[in-house]
C-alpha cells in the first residue's frame, strides 16, 4: 500500500473537468485507489465520489493505492496533479510525453 499527500493548486479545485481527468487516470490502473479528505474516503475511480468531496483550491488530499501497479498509479497521479491537470499520463507511456 502506498500513500501520498497532495495540495490541489488548480484554481477551480477538483471541479467536474479536473475531477474527470483524475478519475480517468486512476481508472487506467488495476490497483485499488482511494482519495481521502477530512477523514472522508472515496474510490478514486468514481467520478461521483470525487465530486462529492468538493475539493477546493489549496485543499490537501491523501491518495492511497494498493495493488500490483501502485507505484505507477501514484506516479501518474502525481504527474497529473503537479502539471495542474494539463498533462494526462498514459499507462504505457507513463507520462513520458509531457
Amino acid at each position: 500500500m502506498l500513500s501520498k499527500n497532495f495540495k490541489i493548486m488548480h484554481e477551480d479545485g477538483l471541479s467536474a473537468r479536473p475531477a474527470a481527468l483524475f478519475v480517468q487516470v486512476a481508472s487506467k490502473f488495476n490497483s485499488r485507489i482511494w482519495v481521502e479528505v477530512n477523514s472522508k474516503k472515496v474510490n478514486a475511480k468514481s467520478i461521483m465520489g470525487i465530486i462529492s468531496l468538493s475539493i477546493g483550491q489549496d485543499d490537501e488530499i491523501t491518495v492511497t493505492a494498493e495493488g500490483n501497479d501502485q507505484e505507477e498509479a501514484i506516479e501518474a497521479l502525481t504527474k497529473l496533479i503537479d502539471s495542474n491537470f494539463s498533462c494526462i499520463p498514459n499507462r504505457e507511456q507513463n507520462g513520458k510525453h509531457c
Partner: protein
Amino acid sequence: MTTIPIDNIINELDLEVIYCGDNQNIDIVTSDVNRPGLQFAGFFDYFASERIQVLGKVEMTYLETMDPEVRQQQLEKFFQYDFPCLVITRNMEIPEYILELSKKYNRPLLRSSISTSNLTQKLINYLSSALAPKITRHGVLVDVYGVGVFIMGESGIGKSETALELIKRGHRLVADDAVEIKKVTDNRLIGEAPELIRHFMEIRGIGIIDIRAMYGVGAVINNKPLDIVIYLEFWDDNKEYDRLGLTEEYTEILGVKLPKIVVPVRPGRNLAIIIEVAARNWRLKRMGYNAAQELDNRLNALIQMNRE
C-alpha cells in the same frame, strides 16, 4: 469524543442563546442528558458531568426554595465540573445567580421554549444522529420493493447500469457511487447520498445524469436503511457460486452484520432481475419462508417415504 458546533445544536433544536462566551463548539461523548436535581441537593457521586445538563421546572423551583448561601455553594461546585452546556426549558426566567456562574466558569447557557421531556427527547435524538459512527462506502444504494439493497463491486462492473435498470423497473435510487452510511443503532445502518451529488448518477459513455429530473420524484428517496449487500464480481470459472441458498453469507459494515449475496456477472445476464429476486427472496425469508429449505424438506420427506 465528537465536537459539534454549538450553532448546529442551537439551530437544530431552536434554542435561545443566553450566554455563549467564547465557545464555538461543544465537545460531547454521549447522547444522554442529565437533570442535575441531585447535584443541587449536594450529591455529586456518579455525577454525569460529560452530558448536557437540562434544567426543568422541578430543578428551577427547587433552587428557589434553597437557602441562598447553600444554593450558591452547591451551584459553585456544580459549575466547576466541565459539562458541555446548560439548557433551561419552558422559557423560564434565568435567575441572576445562574447567569453569573455561567459567565464565571465560561459554560454555554441556552434556553428552550418547549417542555423538559419534549426537549430531552429531541436532544437525545439529535445527539444520537450527530454522534453516530459514519463511513463513506463505494457502491450504489437502491430501494427495491422496500428493501435497502447496497450494490457493491469493483469499478466498471456495472453497478450504476444495474441501478438504472432497477429505476426503470420502478425502484428507487438512494445514492450512486458514494454512500454515506450512518450507524443509528447497534443493528441498524442508514445510507444516504452526500448532499452535493444526491440523485445524480454517472453512466459511462453518457456522463452525468439527474435521475430525479429524468424519472421523476417517484424514482428517488433521500435515505434508506441497509438490509442486504449484493456483491457483483466478474464470473470466475474456478469459483463455486451458491446454488442452493441454504447457507447465508454475511458482511460487516461499521460492526453491523448484513446478509451478503455474491452475484457473478457475465455478459447478457440480467442483473436487475436477479437483484429484484434477491430482494423478494430476502423478504420471504424474513416472513419465515425459505424456498431452499422448503425444497430440501420435500426431498427428505420423499426419500423417507420411498424407504418405508
